[in-house]
């Protein structure tokens, strides 16, 4: 039985410096970015006054995300929809990359923690912008000043829990599928050992992949952007 569960492989080193490894995740992230860029250019190529075909698809997607942002964060928050759309698309395509024999970009804590830190910066910026620096600092002393350490902790817990949630879901799916793949191999060797191929590996992994890869990917992309909108909207609304 050979079950291999590894982190992203190191493909090489930037400038030959061992402190700057180039991992599988980074390569796949660049591929995903290229695909998204190509889609954006392709779908909006030769736009017309009356949309049809691919342009209608692009307009539908943009309007959908605009509406989502407006419904969740309230009016006057349209400036956030490009960021939300970026998060949604990167997360969705990065997770669905696993359907094309690539390691999912989001099954790496570095990716999700990076996104969560951007969101955290956005939250803090908006809190300071709408409450003033004094109001922001005073927010830590509520409801009583004894709660200050707990408030600081809960502030730090936001990006940590966001990134761990996304990473945990994707990596957990990866681990479970790999383990089941190995178990099915052993089982088919024991039960149907006379066949040259592990026959029992057909079927079940595909069904599991539908849940762990397709469903979880869409769900986590949606949840990550929804949480970003909720937190940022909350930071703006508390003024």
């Amino acid at each position, binding site marked *: 039985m050979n079950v291999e*569960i590894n*982190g992203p492989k190191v493909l090489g080193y930037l400038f030959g410096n061992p402190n700057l490894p180039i991992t599988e995740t980074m390569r796949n992230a660049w591929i995903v970015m290229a695909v998204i860029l190509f889609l954006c250019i392709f779908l909006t190529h030769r736009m017309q006054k009356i949309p049809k075909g691919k342009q209608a698809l692009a307009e539908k997607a943009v309007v959908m995300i605009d509406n989502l942002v407006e419904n*969740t964060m309230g009016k006057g928050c349209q400036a956030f929809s490009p960021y939300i759309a970026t998060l949604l698309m990167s997360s969705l395509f990065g997770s669905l990359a696993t359907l094309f024999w690539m390691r999912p970009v989001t099954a790496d804590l570095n990716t999700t923690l990076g996104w969560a830190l951007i969101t955290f910066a956005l939250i803090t910026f908006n809190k300071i912008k709408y409450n003033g620096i004094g109001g922001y600092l005073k927010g830590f002393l509520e409801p009583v000043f004894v709660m200050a350490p707990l408030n600081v902790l809960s502030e730090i817990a936001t990006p940590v*829990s966001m990134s*761990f*949630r996304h*990473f*945990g*879901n994707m*990596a*957990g799916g990866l*681990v479970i599928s790999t383990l089941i793949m190995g178990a099915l191999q052993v089982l088919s060797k024991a039960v149907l050992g006379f066949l040259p191929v592990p026959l029992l590996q057909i079927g079940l992994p595909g069904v599991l992949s539908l849940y762990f890869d397709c469903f979880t990917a869409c*769900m986590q992309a*949606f*949840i990550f952007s*929804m*949480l970003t909108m*909720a937190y940022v909207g909350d930071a703006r609304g508390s003024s």
Partner: protein
Amino acid sequence: MGIDSNAFVAGMSALGAGMAMIAGLGPGIGEGYTAGQACAAIGRQPEAQGDITRTMILGIAMAESTGIYALVIALILLFANPFVGNF
């Protein structure tokens, strides 16, 4: 074949990883309850289905965090064990 310190630590880590996943109980119960309440709410007010579903998904995602923390601990114990090799 004797059990040396590293084998003992590895075995105990596997046991710990399994026990950490007992934390899956809590989110399971909580999410089930949330989904049930959302069903009841949609039954009372079918026109608010979109809002209720969105709020439910957010709530479920929040409730899931504890389970995910347990999963991360289990994964660390299994694949990136900090204790193996110290003895």
